[in-house]
């Protein structure tokens, strides 16, 4: 029986319609597979980069600790060790055969040396853990450090703060070290005359604006961050904090740092 023309036409239409839908289906599935592969690849690269960054921070933290230990060891050896050795010599020299004047002089010098030793040990211990940080809190510890800095170095520090209550000891220690690092970097590298610090606590977050009028960061330094900055980043990563650097050549350096604070338990 002859198939009517219209049936043949509908037949062809259905055939090409099905073919079109088949191609469409294949294209959709291919696009999905391809796109998903790319997304997964990008996620893996991102994860690798993050792991690499974390390793770098850890390396910087370890190197920082080693550097600090070396410095303390050197201070202990060069200052405390030398003073105690000299004091020992003076005590050996003290004998009942000495005349009264010599005995008094030797004893006086030995006591002076012991005072210097005590002062040196106090200084080393202050570096390890400032007592004032535990007893009086972050703001007082910073004020004490700034006071010492202004006396010993030719630099002015303006410290403006609004921290209405004490923060957790661990956070306080991290923030103290961060600010200490910033101050040390300015003194060593920036050739600055003035430092401005603005510390504010708001909505359980601590915000710091740190600015100096020094020479700023060089381009090479901005690309490969130094050990000090890596240590700061490492401490901030522990506190889920954030660091932003604004620097212009010979126009000073500004840091914007913030971190959420842990609740302080009595």
């Amino acid at each position, binding site marked *: 029986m002859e*198939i009517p023309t219209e049936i043949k036409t509908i*037949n062809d239409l*259905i055939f090409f319609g099905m073919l079109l839908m088949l191609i469409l*289906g294949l294209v959709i*599935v291919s696009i*999905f597979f391809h796109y998903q592969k790319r997304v997964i690849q990008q996620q893996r690269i991102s994860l690798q980069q993050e792991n690499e960054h974390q390793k770098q921070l850890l390396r910087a933290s370890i190197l920082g600790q080693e550097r600090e230990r070396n410095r303390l060891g050197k201070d202990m050896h060069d200052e405390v060790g030398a003073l105690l050795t000299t004091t020992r010599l003076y005590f050996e020299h003290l004998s009942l055969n000495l005349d009264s004047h010599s005995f008094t002089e030797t004893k006086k010098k030995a006591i002076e040396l012991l005072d210097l030793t005590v002062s040196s040990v106090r200084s080393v211990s202050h570096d390890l853990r400032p007592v004032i940080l535990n007893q009086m809190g972050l703001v007082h510890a910073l004020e004490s450090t700034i006071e010492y800095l202004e006396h010993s170095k030719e630099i002015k520090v303006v410290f403006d703060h609004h921290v209405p209550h004490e923060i957790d000891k661990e956070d306080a220690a991290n923030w103290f070290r961060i600010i200490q690092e910033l101050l040390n970097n300015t003194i060593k590298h920036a050739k600055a005359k003035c430092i401005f610090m603005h510390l504010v606590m708001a909505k359980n977050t601590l915000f710091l604006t740190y600015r100096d009028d020094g020479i700023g960061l060089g381009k090479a330094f901005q690309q490969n961050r130094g050990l000090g900055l890596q240590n700061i980043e490492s401490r901030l990563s522990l506190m889920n904090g954030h660091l932003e650097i604004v620097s212009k050549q010979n126009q000073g350096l500004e840091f914007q740092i913030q971190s959420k604070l842990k609740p302080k338990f009595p």
Partner: protein
Amino acid sequence: MFYLSPRLYTLGKVTFELIHFIRISQASVCIPFLIGWIRYRNFPAEQRLLHWLIGFGTLTEVLAIVLHQVMQVPNIPVYNLFALVQIVLVNRIYARILNQAVWWLWLNILLFTSIVFFLGNLYFAQPINELNTHSIIFGMVIHLFLAARHFIENFRDKNENQPEVQSMLWFSAGILIYSCSSLLLFLAYDQITNHFQEGIFTPWGLNALMFILLNSFYAINQWKSLPK
């Protein structure tokens, strides 16, 4: 000429017709079935359900050939019953692979609705010896939706495994492509066959090709194990 007994003659005719493309398409369902048979022990629940679906598909094709070629009776009821089995098993597969917290209730409602629709269509509209295109179309639309949903969820969940490794994505890809392309055929089937019984022949050839494609995707699914 040798005289061949009727049974031998039928067997010869059947064997000859195996070379026919439609038969190749029907036979293609054996490949994923055999692969699944070998690897069944290692399958998680969703792949086992798919293996059962392929198993029913194989049984359907065998019965269809036997009924049509050997017993010379219509084989449409077998395909209609398979349509119901497919609706149920695909629903259960997606109940396991989609977000259960979100989809568990909706899939159960969908299953109940599908079964009621199938039985209602069987009783009121299309009897068992007529191809239940309404139920098949209903099932295909649901399968299209569920397969698309699976792709979206997979993309949104940012699965860490490459898509080629995920066996159930191959299942959804096969369902999506087959349903996409065959829907038009079944939509037009009634209109044409009401006027002219032998109307649709070329599209059935294309449908046979897509059935082979579907079985290829099933075979890949059965071959791949789910990532740990």
